[in-house]
């Protein structure tokens, strides 16, 4: 049995996620879409906090909200002509998109409701992943330790930096 405060917290987060997600894809102004995305990402970070994953929530805020969204904003400002901040969508295309998304939602939702509705009813207790644990998991080579993916991601990021520079460079 969760505390009432916890339940209220959950509802706020869930509603924020749902509402801002919908707004993100329905607003016609691209800069607003980015802003709504930022709210969605914040709500996700709050969700991580609520699940006791503080580190992950912090990373979510730092990388997504602090990094990626700023990148988006810069890109939008660089590529949008002043005044030309909206796009008209054909209603047929909108309808088709809606049907596709609802189909996906239906298929997944049906699978979820038929399988997961009545299992794992309560949140199990968990010892917080401390920084010590995280560090060991990330830099160890044993069971459930992830040095190799960590290195791979590092190399990926490096490649990405170089690739970004090369692609965006003026010729």
């Amino acid at each position, binding site marked *: 049995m969760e505390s009432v405060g916890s339940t209220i917290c959950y509802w706020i987060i869930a509603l924020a996620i749902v509402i801002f997600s919908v707004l993100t894809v329905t607003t016609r102004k691209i800069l607003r879409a980015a802003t709504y995305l930022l709210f969605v990402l914040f709500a996700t970070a709050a969700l991580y906090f609520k699940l006791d994953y503080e580190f992950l929530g912090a990373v979510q805020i730092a990388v997504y909200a602090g990094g990626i969204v700023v990148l988006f904003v810069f890109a939008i400002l660089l590529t949008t002509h002043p005044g030309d901040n909206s796009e008209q969508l054909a209603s047929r295309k909108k309808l088709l998109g809606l049907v*596709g998304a609802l*189909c*996906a939602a239906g*298929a*997944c939702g*049906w*699978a979820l409701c*038929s*399988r997961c509705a009545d299992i794992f009813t309560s949140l199990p207790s968990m010892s917080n992943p401390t920084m010590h644990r995280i560090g060991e998991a990330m830099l160890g080579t044993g069971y459930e330790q992830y040095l190799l993916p960590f290195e791979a991601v590092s190399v990926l990021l490096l490649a990405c930096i170089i690739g970004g520079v090369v692609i965006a460079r003026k010729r």
Partner: protein
Amino acid sequence: MDITIPILILAIPLFMFLLLGLGGVKMSHKLAGTLGSLGMGTVLVLSYYTAFTYYFSGNPEFIDGTTRLQYVVFNQTWLQFTPNLAIKLGFLLDPISALMLIVIPTISFMVHIYSLGYMEGEKGFQRYYAFLSLFSFSMLGLVVATNIFQMYIFWELVGASSFLLIGFFYTLPSAISACKKAFIVTRFADLGFLIGILILSFYTQQLDFLPMTQNPQGVLASFGGATFMGASVLTWALVLIFTGGMGKSAMLPLHIWLPDAMEGPTPVSALIHAATMVVAGVYLVARLFPLYMLEDAALMFITVVGAATAFYAAMVACAQIDIKRILAFSTISQIAFMMVSLGVAAKDNVAIHEGLGYMASMFHLFTHAMFKALLFLGAGALIHAVHSNNYTAMGGLRKYMPITHITFLIGCLAIAGIPPFAGFFSKDEILAACFHNNWFWGAWMMMVAAMTAFYMFRMYFLVFWWNNPDYAKEHHGHLPHDPGIAMSFPLIFLAIVSTVCGFIPFGKFVTFDGHEYIIHLDWAVAGSSIGIALISIFFAMWLYAKENDKPRRMADSCRWLWTAAHRRFYWDEIYLFITRRIIFDGICKPIAWFDRHVIDGTMDGFAYVTNKASVAIKGFQSGKVQMYIWWYLIGAVVLGLIVAVCVL
């Protein structure tokens, strides 16, 4: 014995091969030649040291009282497949390998020096010396092998380097086909060798020579009297191993490569096709001789093959025009002498005879290597001077080339078996061994010996006497002359060796069982063989000493025989018929048709279908990202529904 020197004997030629092969392009001809010769000279000194230590030091490792022992200097496991099956590389010292340690470096060193003059200015001079070093390495590795698989490895290496050297003038189509022919024929024979090795090692559970040869009865027991198609399996194994020897030693009917191999440079012919590689077959039989002694059938096979080859090659040699071909056929004939000598050394005669035949064979191997290398190098000098391989372009050369003349005469006398030259002693021992076995073989080989003397002196007289052509006119004022010091020195050296080496008390050093064997000339055999040789020589002299039409009339009187001999009794044509008409037309062409139409057709069909299918579906690749997403989404939803319906 310290293992440094034996390792160096093998390592120096290999190193030289790598050095000259990789770095030769950067070197001048002179440097490459000098380096190669110096390397070989070092090997010569080291092998002489090793061989003399083995024979003369009296060290109990090598000799037990009066019995010479087989001594394994080292035997390193190279590839361990299973606990029982390992391939080892090692160095075995025994009477015959020590003998080969003298023969190979001597001839090889002489050829190295001779080539400095003969190959001067040739394109690819450095490559030539690299290949010579590779060949010497392979041959040395072959003779010191401690196990039959090491022998097989080096056997193939010898074949490969021989291929490279025969095809040295790779711009000549004849050289290319000759080297391919040599390689394919010997490879074909080596297949028999390999099967023989597999059979032998399957039953005996080992590859090493010593456990086999020192305990032949154990080998016989391990076969347990198994038979196959009427002959014992051991006989089959030995005959198959001998097949490899037949290929390398150019025994009938696998001899066809050797005459063509004369397309290589002449010093190469002297090294490979006279003195070293072609005796590998003899060496192989000698190495496994204790096993061959167990099976009379195998020995009988060797004798028959050898005797037939000796006679055939002698017949053909009488009707050739190309002097190198004559020498090639004489080589085939002489190798066959050695084979017969091993073949007649059967156990069921009096104990002395097996020692005699074996010893005589090795003795002849030694002397033949010397005088046949001499003859080939002399032929090289002649070709160098006259620029032709055919005796029709020569004649009366004794006045122009005195050194070549004298040394060549010594070589001819040696091979004809005139005392005191080397061939007399060894050939006499072979004839004696044959007569001890069976008068028929004795008479047969005596006849071949007479033919040998005849065709050698036919060549000698046709080259050095006969007529006196106007060389000045044919060669724009240049007269034929003796070659320079680099080419004359090996001739003189080998001539001296061929003169004196018959006096070596050979039975003291190389015998079948390690015991000393006293050679005593059987004067009945020796006298008659000298007599027959002299008659043949005088007959050749009567026919060829001065230009006349007696030879032509003789050839005309039995024209078909002469033509058949000249065409080598049509062996090449028979081979061509079998390969072209039967194998190519009968088997390969249908297979080619099948490949072209069925297999290629299937593949073409695949390509056609793929092509059409891609044309049909290429519209999907529109470049519109959102279309891709649509397809992806539809697929994902359908897949999800399938999973949901069927699994959940």
